[in-house]
């Protein structure tokens, strides 16, 4: 991002309410420099879309935000990621605790090979909920708009659900433990238009209580659901600002080229 653009996005994006922010973030996989000097703020109770061509580092950036990159051997991270002002890579931060506040939905639905009920109860149990979990299971399934379809078969395998239902189950599973932030990595890429529409509605509803960061390849989706959009290219942040402005008056010609489908 040029300095002028950085100043512009600083003016456009309310950084005072940042739930998450990165400052000079760099990520290397071995010797390949996957994220280069990315500084971004994710405002509270809003939806931020990350767009960019395949391989530009969207997933890598997302996985830095709740320390899911810790599991990848040979990864090196410099710079700062702050969750409500606290550096999440500080030595005294427990990544397990952190992930309870910053949940993640993956590109491919990944329900556990257990019952629908157990898929949700697992997160509740490991987070210390005791006693009757059914009301909480029901609540999160309702939030994810799945309850009516599964109420009679909570004890059946989650693997018997359709792809769209599985993804909503994964969302319900993440919501059950009441995180603060939801990171979504192309949550609809494995779904048909109907299932996608349901999940988009859901995401929009969730905005009232959650801060959401969503990676997507679908420009219409980014335009439809997000408040802010970040465009990345080759590991760099090219442009960041309110979605409406990015899609109508992009400041960088590469952003314009990408959103109009002229490359990538």
């Amino acid at each position, binding site marked *: 991002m040029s300095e002028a653009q950085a100043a512009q996005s600083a003016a456009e994006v309310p950084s005072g309410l940042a739930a998450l922010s990165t400052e000079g973030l760099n990520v290397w996989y071995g010797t390949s420099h996957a994220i280069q000097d990315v500084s971004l703020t994710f405002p509270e109770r809003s939806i931020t879309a990350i767009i960019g061509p395949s391989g530009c580092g969207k997933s890598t950036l997302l996985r830095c935000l709740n320390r*899911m990159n810790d599991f990848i051997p040979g990864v090196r991270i410099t710079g700062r990621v702050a969750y409500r002002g606290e550096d999440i890579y500080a030595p005294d931060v427990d990544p397990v605790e952190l992930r309870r506040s910053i*949940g993640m939905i*993956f590109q491919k639905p990944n329900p556990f090979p*257990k*019952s629908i009920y157990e898929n949700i109860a697992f997160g509740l149990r490991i987070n210390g909920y005791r006693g009757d979990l059914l009301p909480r299971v029901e609540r999160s399934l309702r939030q994810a708009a799945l309850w009516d379809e599964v109420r009679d078969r909570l004890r059946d*395998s989650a693997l018997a659900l359709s792809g769209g239902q599985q993804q909503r189950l994964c969302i319900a599973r*993440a919501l059950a433990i009441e995180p603060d932030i939801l990171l979504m990595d192309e949550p609809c890429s494995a779904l048909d238009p109907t299932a996608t529409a349901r999940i988009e509605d859901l995401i929009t509803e969730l905005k009232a209580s959650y801060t959401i960061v969503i990676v997507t390849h679908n420009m219409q989706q980014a335009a439809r659901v997000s408040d802010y959009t970040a465009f990345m290219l080759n590991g760099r942040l090219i442009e960041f600002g309110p979605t409406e402005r990015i899609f109508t008056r992009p400041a960088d010609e590469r952003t314009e080229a990408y959103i109009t489908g002229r490359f990538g």
Partner: protein
Amino acid sequence: MRAPGGPGMRRRRRAAAVALQALALGAVVVGLGVLVVLLFDVLRDGAGTLTWTFLDSFPSRRWQQAGFKAAIFGSVYLLVLVAVISFPLGVGAAVYLEEYARRSAMTRFVEINIANLAAVPSIVYGLLGLGVFVRTLGLGRSLLAGALTMSLLILPVIITAAREAIRAVPASIREGAYALGASRWQVVRHHVLPMALPGILTGTILALSRAIGETAPLIAIGALTYVAFVPESVFDPFTAMPIQIYNWVSRPQQGFHAIAASGILVLLVVMLGFNALAIVLRARMQRRSQW
């Protein structure tokens, strides 16, 4: 122009498929056939002398009175002890190597050595057991020394099988659990182990089946062939079925050969029994842990 998958090539591919199928079928028939002939042979020789007295008597110099009781108890106790020792050790080692250890020259060295250990002849384990457990640790020719030796022998097999089963658990499942704030141990305990358990148990069953038939290491550590009692503690001397069978077969009298065949039948039944038990256990665990 002929398409690459034209009729000629398709016919040839079909012929190859049929040939391969015939070959595979042949291999199965030969394998099973040999097994059936062997079983039939043993049955013919040993069924007649397989009596209750045979099962309930201790060894004797006269084959009419010689029995298999000490060997049966010895083998069953040995197998249970081996399972109790090697299963947690093997699974623990596999979990450590797969889920906790950092990839380093050291872990690679350990991995290569585990693979090599699986190929070491069993007599070498027997000599090791003799040196370490019988002599240095002063366990004598006890059941415990035998079980520890056998555990060493089958540990590499269990570790390798368990690692493969653990590695087959998809990364997406682990990530899903981590993303919910699960600790490493919670991921292992609630997801990795339950999903890997069928594979781990299959490997363990195979390893234990090998242990129950092993003779050489037990002879090396000096398990007795004449034991006229049932071991009462893990520090008692013992004998095992293959040792007793080996002893009987090497005698000149025809009668001992017959009871050796009966012994083989018992050995087979016990082995199949253990396998069946493990399969039932596996099926039940699978059901319970999944839902």
